[in-house]
């Protein structure tokens, strides 16, 4: 079944050097339409660097990042600016929450709509019917997204006054506002308790189905990763040591070694 699906994101042999340090070494990864893929690995394995490389914040030293959002053939996006990458349909969240703290919650989401709207300087000054309509649509779309993520009661508050879990959800709402074909989540469950994590899991599945998008996530919570994702990729010291279904990964000796250390494998 999975094999019939179209690949939307294809990463081939990506490496990234920081001076003499090779943070990523020849990493391959692919995400298919409507799939939830997880990227796991111990701390410092290069997961966030990988995210930064494919979203244009860093330019990979070697390798290709190709996307095919709508089945029209692959497009290479290495070295494109982050805003272009987002416009092409890859939206991300950040490990350390990066909201716009002194803007209201709904305004944060409206920023996400920026690259899908067109109002220019002249439109802003003359406030012609087209601009007003666009602004109104932006507000309605943002509010609908807030409702979907259960944040509508906070719409008017400043983003910095939100509880932690809500801030995480707001980042997802903001990313969704860019109309992505793939959502890249960097440790969405970090700092959440088990109940919040379970809720988040449901949320991710429902978003994926409703918006018909793929999800690529970095996560440490093994329980969540195993139950949520269709496939996993494992990184260690910048190298990819395994990939496969959750079942395969949980039995892979290299992964167990990476996570638990050598002696336990022998024991």
């Amino acid at each position, binding site marked *: 079944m999975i094999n019939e699906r179209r690949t939307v994101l294809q990463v081939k042999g990506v490496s990234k050097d920081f001076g003499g340090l090779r943070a990523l070494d020849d990493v391959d990864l692919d995400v298919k339409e409507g799939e939830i893929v997880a990227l796991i690995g111990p701390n410092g394995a290069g997961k966030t660097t990988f995210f930064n490389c494919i979203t244009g914040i860093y330019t990979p030293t070697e390798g290709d990042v190709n996307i095919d959002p709508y089945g029209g053939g692959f497009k290479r996006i290495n070295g494109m600016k982050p*805003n272009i990458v987002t416009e092409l349909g890859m939206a991300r969240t950040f490990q350390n929450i990066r909201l716009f703290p002194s803007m209201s919650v709904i305004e944060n989401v409206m*920023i996400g709509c*920026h690259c899908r709207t067109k109002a220019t300087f002249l439109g*802003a000054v003359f406030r012609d019917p087209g*601009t007003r309509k666009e602004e*109104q649509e932006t507000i309605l779309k943002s509010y609908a997204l807030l409702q979907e993520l259960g944040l509508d009661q906070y*719409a*008017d508050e400043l983003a910095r006054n939100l509880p932690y879990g809500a801030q995480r959800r707001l980042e997802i709402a903001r990313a969704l506002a*860019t109309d992505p074909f793939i959502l890249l989540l960097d440790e969405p469950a970090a700092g959440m308790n088990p109940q919040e994590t379970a809720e988040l899991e449901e949320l991710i599945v429902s978003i994926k189905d409703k918006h018909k998008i793929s999800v690529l996530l970095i996560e440490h919570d093994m329980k969540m990763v195993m139950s949520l994702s269709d496939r996993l990729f494992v990184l260690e010291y910048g190298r990819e040591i395994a990939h496969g279904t959750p079942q395969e990964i949980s039995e892979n000796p290299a992964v167990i070694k990476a996570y638990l250390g050598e002696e336990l494998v022998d024991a």
Partner: protein
Amino acid sequence: MEGLKKSVLASLWFMFLTLPIMGVFVNTIDKSVTWHLDRVLYVGAAAFVLSYLWRFMLERKERGMKAEEQSAVEKVTLLNKLLANPKFFWPAVIAVAGFAIAFPKLFSMYQVNVMTSALIYVVLGLGLNIVVGLAGLLDLGFVAFYAVGAYSYALMNMYWGISFWVALPLGALLGALCGILLGFPVLRLRGDYLAIVTLGFGEIIRLVLENWAEFTHGPSGISNIARPEFFGLAKGFMAQINFMYYLMLVLVVFTIFVVNRLKNSRIGRAWQALREDEIACQAMGIDKMKTKLMAFSLGATWAGMVGVVFAAKTTFINPASFTFLESAIILSIVVLGGMGSILGVILGALVLILLPEYMRDFSEYRMLIFGATMVLVMVFRPQGLVRDVRKKIDISAVKKALGGVHD
């Protein structure tokens, strides 16, 4: 009690420090020493009162800030509350407008002239407010664009006899163009680096104007710049000055209108987001360069435009009018008034330009008072005279609109 002790210590320390200057007078001719201990006591008393007051105010301010943090609600000042109330807002606007229109009838020519310069600074402040207040780019060379506007009119008038009304939009356009030209290489920089480079740019423009003597007449400047013709309506010197005033008034209203609309638009939102987090902003699909460049060139547009007005008003310009001090004053207007706040910047401009003007009687202490005012405002109201309050999105209206569709 603790505060009292500290104040006593401070006053003793001050008395000790000022003793040699204030208290001891040595007469070298008849080799005698006179003691003026009473003066030292005055110093001590003043230091005590001031230090006590200072501590009291600081404490009050900190308590206020703590309360604000705890309540997690943005404190709305009385002024902001009044402004949000249409019952107060519109009469206030009408009163101010009426006063502004009647101003030349009520006051002398001198006052009108002073007010016109103040209005020029209002527009400059609002222009810089786009760059510094809305987009958060620290620009220390803003006066360069003002110079570009002023010199473009002066030179075009001198060489080709171009009239004021043609030069006004051209000056604005040239300002914008310079903003873009400077912006391209410079806007990759952030914060302090940007400030230094813009500072350098401001100096470059001034030095070029000063040294390119065969074209700009160098330090001696350009004189006899034509005053604007108000379609034959303004006859005589008085009428000219009044017309100049009204022209500035119209420009101020126009600027307020445009800046206000920009602020509450898609672009204004992008500026605000850029100010808060550049990386997140880019990750949300906002083109950093384009957005910054737009802020920079829009700010420069206003500077170029009032530059033309300035040249026409004074009929004489030279590079000395465009020193770094001017940039610093315009920046002070924005910071003192309240970054991002339109009303704040207007108040800031009026305070900083009119106060030194009316304090000419104490001209020796003018800069001292100016400096002290700045320090006091920054310590006790770091957000400026008027805090910037963004227009809220009307959630209840959104609910109603959505309710009509879904429920």
